[in-house]
């Protein structure tokens, strides 16, 4: 049975990037979305460039979610539209150019750089000044959002304490002493007093994707924003 163009594109990307393909879906006939990890994006491009002769970069969209930058690379491939989605955390404020592979990306990347304040890597003209003046202040890029997630400021300590320790009211050494004076254990039998319980609790939160939703950094055990 003949493989459809859409399936062929997904297979081609999968062969090129392996497990770095995060998701792929067909929105409708001849409209495909493929999400790949940023480190594998160029490999994905090499793969489709090698596979398809009728390939053209239509444009690049950039979306600032507050915590992450999402780049959408729209390609015309043999009568279908293929969009690559690449998400980078805002802490990494760089965009690696693809203008060496697709010269049409040159001006689009510069426009994104001007409007969002991201730094271009491996670009022939990485400096600002295409759609804004060259002396435009870096901290006032018109499409750049404040670096923060969905939680309002007052809710951040609660969410951070809940995810990191399983308890929304961290205990002070003063209270620990008072508890011992009263014949109680220093702390009740909370998740954070038991490694297995903590692992289980964190596992559940990882499984439901709460950390991604709130912008929690598992390594640093705190929210990515203040």
């Amino acid at each position, binding site marked *: 049975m003949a493989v459809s163009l859409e399936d062929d594109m997904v297979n081609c990307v999968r062969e090129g990037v392996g497990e770095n393909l995060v998701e792929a879906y067909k929105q409708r006939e001849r409209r495909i979305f493929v999400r790949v990890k940023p480190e594998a994006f160029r490999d994905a491009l090499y793969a489709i460039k090698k596979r398809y002769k009728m390939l053209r970069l239509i444009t690049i969209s950039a979306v600032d979610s507050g915590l992450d930058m999402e780049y959408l690379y729209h390609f015309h491939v043999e009568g279908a539209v293929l969009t690559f989605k690449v998400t980078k955390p805002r802490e990494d404020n760089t965009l690696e150019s693809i203008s060496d592979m697709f010269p049409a990306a040159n001006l689009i990347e510069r426009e994104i750089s001007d409007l969002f304040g991201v730094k271009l890597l491996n670009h022939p003209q990485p400096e600002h000044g295409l759609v804004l003046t060259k002396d435009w202040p870096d901290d006032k890029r018109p499409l750049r959002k404040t670096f923060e997630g969905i939680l309002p400021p007052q809710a951040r300590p*609660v969410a951070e304490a809940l995810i990191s320790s399983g308890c929304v009211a961290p205990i002070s050494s003063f209270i620990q002493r008072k508890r011992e004076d009263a014949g109680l254990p220093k702390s009740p039998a909370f998740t954070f007093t038991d490694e297995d319980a903590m692992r289980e609790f964190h596992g559940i939160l990882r499984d439901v994707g709460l950390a991604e939703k709130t912008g929690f950094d598992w390594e640093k055990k705190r929210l990515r924003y203040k």
Partner: protein
Amino acid sequence: MVKYALFLGCQIPMRLPSIEIASRRVFNILGLEAVDLLGYSCCPEPVVSRLLDETAALATSARNLTLAEDLGLDMLTLCNGCYETLAEANEALKHDAEKRSKVNTILRRYGREYAGKVDVKHIVEALYEDVGLNGIRKHVTKPLKIRAALHYGCHLYREYKASDIMRKPNMMREIAMQTGVDIIDYGLERLCCGYPSMQADEEFSLKHRLLPKLSRMRSKGAETILTICPACTIQFEIGQVMLRSYGFQFNMPCINLMELLALSFGVPHRDLHLELHRSPVQQLVQKVLRVS
């Protein structure tokens, strides 16, 4: 002896341990056995968590409920917020097969399964239904002559098995009356203390929720605020301090029902560590005990 799995929550053991101390003494005197849950987490707290992600909140509650299922005991809470979160999750998971299946798919990865075998009870229900008013009254050796304004707390009105939302607030009132306190009706009992709205708007919470309650309580001659919920206690105590920056001076004690019961049962006030309160509870108790 009636036996429960005790869910202490976060605020009581970490910020208001005098309530935990009092509760354990009261359980002991009344013959309620409370078995501590090991490895429990926040219920999770009802203001932020449940709005953020329903599945995360349900899975967290379900995990806590399975700890009680492991013990084969109904769960007992001392906090209105924990009660609402856990009782509501229990109801949702018992009656919504889709949600239960989704949550159990997650829990099974950790060797757990929510079976819907336990109920969640608020402490006022356990005191009223399992011990009874007579059972409480017979232990009152030091009736406390205090004029108290009751604040039930919004989550105490939540009902899952009956339609009368005043069922638990009335239980709290009747239990309080056994200790000898004179209950002052001030007409704003149903108004929220403002604790949840502190997350969104401090000025609104303090001036449009806490202030009207405190003003009315004081004008009606209340000597103390009587609560059952630790979050409300925190709001009344810290909120009074914060109101000073808006030009309003209050210094009313805020005592918890479990502390009141312990005192009326003759537990020495020093044993309860009432000095941990941020309002003059200790001073009030010393004054009342000197008089009696």
